[in-house]
Structures are given as C-alpha cells and as structure tokens.
C-alpha cells in the first residue's frame, strides 16, 4: 500500500485561519470558546488558588512550630485550616485537572474543540465566580471555619451563627454547576469527537481516566449539592434537616457528604494517574504494559469508589456488624490501584527510561503514593481507625495520598506539556532542583505527622502545651514546609521564565506518543489542519515511523476548511459519522455566569430580591444563548 503524507493547500489554511479566528483584545479575551485558552485559564486560576492555600498552610505551620505559639488567634486558625482544605480540594485539585483535560482531551483525540465550547466557557466562569465568592469571605474575615467537611451540627445556625458557613454552602452548590457541566462536556467529547479510526480501545489512557472521572463527577456531585442545599435551607429558612431536636439527623450530613467525598478522592486521583499513564510510556520509550488491565482498573476504581464511603465514618457509631463488610470492601480498592502501579513499574522496567524532570516527579509520585496507600489500608482495619481518627496520623495519610497522588502528577504534567502549551522549554537543571526540594520538603513536612499522630496529637488544634512532647516533630514539619514552599517557588520561576524566554521547543521535544505532539507548539486555533486518522494507540509514533514519504494535497473532506467544523465519530468503533458545526465566541456564557454569581451573592447577603432578579437575568441569558445563531451557519 502506498503511504502518502497529506498536506493542506494555502487556500485551505487561509480558510481555516479565517473561520477559526476569534476577536482580539479584551472582547476576545472575555468571549473566547477556544478550549486551549479556557484550559490555560483553568490552570492559571487553579494555580493561584494553590499558592493562596499554600500560604495559608505556611501560616498554620508557623503557628504550630512551637508549643503555646500566639501568632494567630484560634478563630483565625479555624478559618485558615478550613480555607486551606476547601481551596486545595475544590478550587485547586479538580479545576487544575479539569484545566489539563480541557487543554489536552481535544488535542489527544484529534478534535478541534470540546463538544460544547460555550458550555466550556461557562464552566470556567462559574468556577472563577464561586472561588471569588468563597474568598470574599476570607477578605471580610468571615470565611468558612468548620473544616473542609463542615460537619453538622457544628455548621448549623445555632453553633455557627455568622455568615461563615453560608460562603461554604452556597459556594459549593455554585461550584457544583461548573463541575457537573464540565464532566458532561468531557463525556460527550470523548465519546463522540474522536478522530476516525480511534476506536475506544485506542483511546489514550489519559482520556480513559478523564472519562471515568467525568462519570464519577456526574453521579457524586448531586450528593454534595443535596447536602449543602439541606444545610442552607436549615440555616437560611429555618428547616430542620440536621436538627435532632426536631426529628432531623446530623449523621445525614455525614452520609451525604461522604457519598460525594469518597468518590471525590478518585475524582482527584484518576485524572492524575491518567497523567502518569501518559508520561511513563514516552519516557520509558515503549508502549504502556497491560493497556486493557489499566483501563479495567480505572473503570472498577471509579465504581468501587461509590461503595466505601462509610469507612470515613467508622468512628461515628454505625452498626457494628456492617463494619466488617465495609472494611473488606475498602481493602478491595487496593487491587485496581495495585494493578496500575505494577503496570507502570513493568513499563519502566521493560523500557529504557530517560530520567528528565517529568519522570522524576512521576517516580516521586509512585513512592509517596504507595506510602499513602499503605496507611490507607491500615485505616480499613476498624479498631486501628478508631484509635487514630482525627489525629495527625490522618493528616499525614491524606497528604501522602493527595499531594502524592495529585500534586506530583500535576507537576509532572506541567513540565511535560509546558513545551506544547507555550512552545518553549523550561530549564532542566532548575526543574530537577525543584523536584528534590519538593520531594524532600514534602517528606520532611508530612512524615513526622504520622508519629505526632500516633503520640496523640489531634488535628485542627491551634496550639498545644509543651509538656505533650510534640514540639520537636512540629518544628521539623514547619522547617519542611518552608523547604517545600521553596520548591514550589522554583517551579513557578521556571515556568514563568520558560514562558517568557525559554528556548523554542518545536512541535515534539519528547518523541510523544499521542496526537497533540503531531501539531505545532502552541497549536493553532483549529488544532489540526488535516483531521487525523488513527491506526493504533500510538498515532504520533506511527507518524514518525516513516519520516520521508511523498506528499499529496489533502481533499477538502479531510480539512473541512469552511466554517467552524469538526468530525463526529461512532461511540465505540470510532468510524466517521458526521460533520458537525461548532459554535463560535459568545458573550452569553459570561452573562449567565455573572447572573448566577448575583443569585448566590444575593442569597448570601440575605437579599432575596437581588437573587430573584438575577435568576430572571440568568433565564434571559439562557434564552439569548439558545436563540438562533448566525455565526454557526448552515452545513
């Protein structure tokens, strides 16, 4: 069979430029629907929240450095640790991973944008607005102060009379809109917009992870929204859902929260391991071992994640008999996680690993995450769990799982895809230095917490007396946290420097495996001049296998030069089904998000009139959004 390389004609390129161009300046900035710009925004915004939450953590650690410290008041301490948790979980981890997904999924599957570009713009604005809403509380000194899981009845009006908890309740209901809509967008994009030939079993593992995560989000967020809805009905309108005196039950909050909360661990963890599975084959210079096992492990992890929330509540006083079953079920989750870890290790062993910064962060992830997983299995043993619940041992565990399981992969992904996103290379020396600072600082901060926890130090105390003997561990932890902060600073410097004056990276600095490495860095607005066709799970390696092939002009049906168009393909087989028109830039997402912000802001400050008027404006924006759009045009 003759192999021919297709190339677009000057006319086709010109038409593509024309039809995918967005407005320049502020207007373009506010109305864009380009998934790459939106993805970068997600990442920058989430990165800023990460730095804010990191500063909060530094304040906490400084306060705890010595016994009987008086740097911050107990009230401020409560707000700081609550905002640290809320920010890291809700405003950093998920949005950052959504940002990666937004940027990468269409590029990896060979599409020109997300399936619903305007919805995509909306989800970003809603995320931003809910983050600003919650941080307004911190600025006004009335931030959430009941911890990130906000247990009733402490969060009820009786025990938390201020507005603090309302920032949490309303903010998270608001944010839930963004996460759910974003997840739906990912599901449709991955199932319907893959390049022809990319059958479901050629889907990159990263996209599998995003797909499984998105299904998890769609089913988990409603529980969180329900919990907060009931809470706000209690607080704002005198309902009694969590009030025992009137037939309610505070344990209901815990159930609803953890029905969301445990799957949320996987909402954070799965896309992060997707990053790991994307990077390891490239740096091991061979395909991933046991592709299908990793897919099955991803799917079953997402499923099992819904069945084990009770293990967050072993100390609550639930039926004794049932705990045996949940304990067993919780241990089962080690099986799919183990399959993935062994698949990564096997890939590295069978390949010829190239030790660059991204791979260093991945190796750090494997080491740290395995330790976190081990303490996790310990928690599945009910008597042990009851012994260490709400101690620093728990704090140590979930930082190993979440920092290890999410932040290390995110940093790996940041260094790996930075050349693609910016077109420029970071400094390898500074990158490796930042890794050792982060890795050392992390372990110095969090490993001693295991011991302090076993010695009985409870979490969420603003200080402790010297005679408890926890002082030395805490001092080491605080020193570690500053080393860690230095490492993060080194990453920021490296990224900013690379973005402004790094060496040009070229389209494929790593010898990448997936389709994003077949286009320019940064990619053009339409992503692919010629819509790619896929023959294997490693399309970029296929393309580079035969560098010198004759070139031929591409037909228009491979370029779709006119209008804002992309290909739709079959859900499983990935055969081309249809050509679909994509909407262009629009003001409506911003208008809708702004009206929704006013709805929640109005409820928060106790002015329902504003909320009602804003709700009408929101409906108006929806109507405008769905009115016939001339820019989409006919096919």
């Amino acid at each position, binding site marked *: 069979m003759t192999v021919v390389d297709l190339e677009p004609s000057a006319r086709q390129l010109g038409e593509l430029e024309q039809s995918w161009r967005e407005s320049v300046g502020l207007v373009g900035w506010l109305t864009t629907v380009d998934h790459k710009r939106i993805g970068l925004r997600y990442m920058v915004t989430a990165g800023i929240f990460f730095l804010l939450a990191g500063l909060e953590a530094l304040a906490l650690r400084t306060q705890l450095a010595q016994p009987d410290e008086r740097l911050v008041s107990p009230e401020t301490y409560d707000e700081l640790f609550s905002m640290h948790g809320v920010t890291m979980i809700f405003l950093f981890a998920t949005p950052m991973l959504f940002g990666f997904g937004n940027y990468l999924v269409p590029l990896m599957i060979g599409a020109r944008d997300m399936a619903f570009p305007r919805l995509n713009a909306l989800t970003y604005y809603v995320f931003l607005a809910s983050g600003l809403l919650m941080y307004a509380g911190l600025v006004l000194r009335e931030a959430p102060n009941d911890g990130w899981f906000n247990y009733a009845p402490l969060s009820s009006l009786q025990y938390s009379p201020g507005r603090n908890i309302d920032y949490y309740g309303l903010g998270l209901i608001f944010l839930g809109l963004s996460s759910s809509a974003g997840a739906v967008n990912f599901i449709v994009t991955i199932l319907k917009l893959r390049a022809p030939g990319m059958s479901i079993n050629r889907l990159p593992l990263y996209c599998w992870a995003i797909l499984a995560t998105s299904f998890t989000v769609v089913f988990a967020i409603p529980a969180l929204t329900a919990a907060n809805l009931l809470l706000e009905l209690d607080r704002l309108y005198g309902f009694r859902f969590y009030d025992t005196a009137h037939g309610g039950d505070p344990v209901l909050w815990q159930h609803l929260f953890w029905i969301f909360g445990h799957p949320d661990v996987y909402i954070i963890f799965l896309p992060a391991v997707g990053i790991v599975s994307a990077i390891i084959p490239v740096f091991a210079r061979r395909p991933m071992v046991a592709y299908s096992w990793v897919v099955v492990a991803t799917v079953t992890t997402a499923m099992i994640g*819904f069945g084990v929330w009770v293990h967050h509540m072993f100390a609550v006083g639930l039926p004794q008999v049932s705990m045996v079953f949940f304990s067993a079920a919780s241990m089962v989750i080690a099986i799919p996680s183990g399959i993935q870890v062994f698949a990564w290790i096997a890939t590295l062993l069978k390949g010829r690993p190239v030790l660059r910064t991204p791979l260093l962060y991945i190796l750090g992830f494997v080491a740290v995450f395995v330790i976190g997983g081990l303490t996790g299995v310990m928690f599945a043993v009910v008597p042990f769990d009851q012994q260490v619940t709400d101690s620093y041992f728990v704090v140590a565990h979930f930082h190993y799982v979440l920092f290890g399981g999410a932040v290390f992969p995110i940093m790996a992904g940041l260094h790996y895809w930075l050349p693609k996103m910016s077109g420029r290379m970071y400094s390898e020396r500074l990158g490796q230095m930042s890794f050792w600072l982060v890795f050392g600082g992390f372990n110095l901060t969090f490993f001693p917490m295991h011991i302090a926890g076993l010695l009985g130090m409870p979490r969420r105390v603003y200080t402790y007396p010297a005679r408890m003997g926890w002082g030395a561990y805490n001092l080491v932890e605080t020193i570690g946290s500053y080393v860690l902060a230095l490492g993060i600073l080194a990453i920021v410097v490296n990224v900013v420097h690379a973005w402004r004056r790094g060496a040009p990276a070229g389209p494929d600095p790593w010898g990448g495996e997936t389709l994003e490495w077949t286009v320019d860095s940064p990619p053009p607005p339409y992503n692919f001049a010629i819509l790619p066709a896929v023959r294997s799970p490693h399309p970029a390696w296929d393309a580079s296998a035969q560098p010198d092939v004759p070139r031929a002009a591409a037909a228009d049906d491979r370029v779709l030069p006119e209008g804002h168009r992309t290909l739709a393909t079959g859900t499983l087989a990935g055969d081309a089904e249809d050509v679909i028109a994509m909407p262009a830039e629009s003001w409506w997402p911003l208008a809708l998000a702004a009206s929704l912000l006013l709805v929640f802001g109005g409820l928060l400050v106790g002015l329902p009139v504003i909320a009602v008027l804003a709700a009408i404006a929101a409906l108006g924006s929806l109507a405008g959004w769905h009115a016939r759009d001339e820019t989409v045009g006919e096919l």
Partner: protein
Amino acid sequence: VTKLAPLVLLAALVALYAVGSLRLHRRASRRTRARRALQGAVFLAGALALAVALSPPVDDVADRSVAAHMAQHLVLLVIVPPLLVWSAPLATLVTALPRSLRPVAGRAATWLTGRWIGLAVVIVATELHVGLMIAWHAPPLYAAAQATELTHAFEHVTFLASGLLFWSCITRLARRGASGCAIALGATVAASVQSGLLGILMTLSSMPWYHVSGPAPFGLTPLADQQAAGAEMWVVAGGVYVVAAAVLAAGIVRAPAGQAPELVATDRHEARSSA
C-alpha cells in the same frame, strides 16, 4: 413436602445433565472434552449452591434470621444464575432426552439462546431482576413470602427466573463485541446502584423492618440481624456486579478495533499496517 420438592427436581436435573454429558463425551474431540469438563464443573457448582441454599437446615435458619435469609436470596439472585448461564447447559440437557423429544426441545433451546435480546429486553430484564429483589424485601411482601411454604417457593422461583433472564442477557451481550459489552456494562452498573440502595437503607435504618419468628441465631439483636442483611446485599451483591463490570469493561477494550476508516485511504498512518 414443599421443602424437599425443589431438591428432588434439582437432583433430576443433575441426573439428566449427567446422562447428556456422557452421551456427548463419547462423540467429542479432546479439545471439546476439556471445555465440556470445565462447563460441567461450573454447572455442578451452580447446582450445588442452589441445593445448599434450598436445603432444609439453611431454610430453617433463614426463617429465624433476616441475614441468613438474605444470604439465601443472594445465592438465588447473583450466584446461581451466572454460574448456570455461563455453563450453557441446554445442549447437554437436550441430548439427554429421548430421541423423539429432542427436535422440540432443541428448537426451544435454540429460541431461548437466540439473538432476540435488544435494548428493550435488557432494560426490562434488569428492572425485573432488581425490581423483584427490592419488592420482595418490602415488609408486607416479605411477611407474605414467609406466611406459607407455597408463597416462599414462589418468591424463590421469581428470584431464580429473573436472575437467569438478567444474567443470560449479560452473558449473551458480552459475546457481541464492544457495543454488546458496553450495553451489558450499563445494565450491570444500573443493577448495582439500585440493589445497593436497598442494602444501604436496610443497613442504616434505625428500626427493624421485619417480624422474625423466634430468637435470631448468632446472638444478634433483630436490628443487628437486619443490618448484617443489608450489608450483605450492599457489599456481596455489589461485589458480584463489580466483577461482572470489570469483565465487561475488559470485553470493550479487547474487542477487535473497528474497520479502517474510509477517509484514510492515502494516509501516512498506514505505515504500520502495510509494513
């Protein structure tokens, strides 16, 4: 008498299967013999599980304990049907029949295992399977089933029949490539969510739902007994569905890739396939 009737029937079925197996064994090649031996073992495991679940001692404990009763139900719902369905015993059973009956029975078996399952059948089968599971555990129906031996037997028949229907849909879809596996995966997830809901409510409820005759075994209070039953339903049934889902997900991924798209007739990505 009603307690022993199912066991007698089961014994007759196993005997029939044994006769059929012997007849087929004589004609079979070595490779098919190995496969048949495996299927026979799975069939026997299913029959044995059914016999244990319906045996008088187990039945007695089930009368006094919700947890034991739930274990019995789970065997009928998610243990026996997948085993029996997977072992595909119909051909063997037909062979055991007298020559004159074989054509009729053969046609019936062919129809039963035919390609008539569409999306609607799968949805109905799933909802029947889970719906009956939930309905029979509503306190009034639970009491009715316990009232007489006949209603109890009827309950068990509906469990087993709906289980066989559901699991035969799943196994047959699983042989139809990626799309069949995807539909079966959806059905399995739907079943696990709905049956899990019943288990959750039963476990976390603060009052006993059922009237149980006599003291519960294992020294459990009525409430603890019910909570154990709920946890069984949640975790054991859920576990079976998760395993099934894992197998089906593997089926999706391992199905042969789709046809080469027409659009790529002159594409460089053919490098691999033509080399």
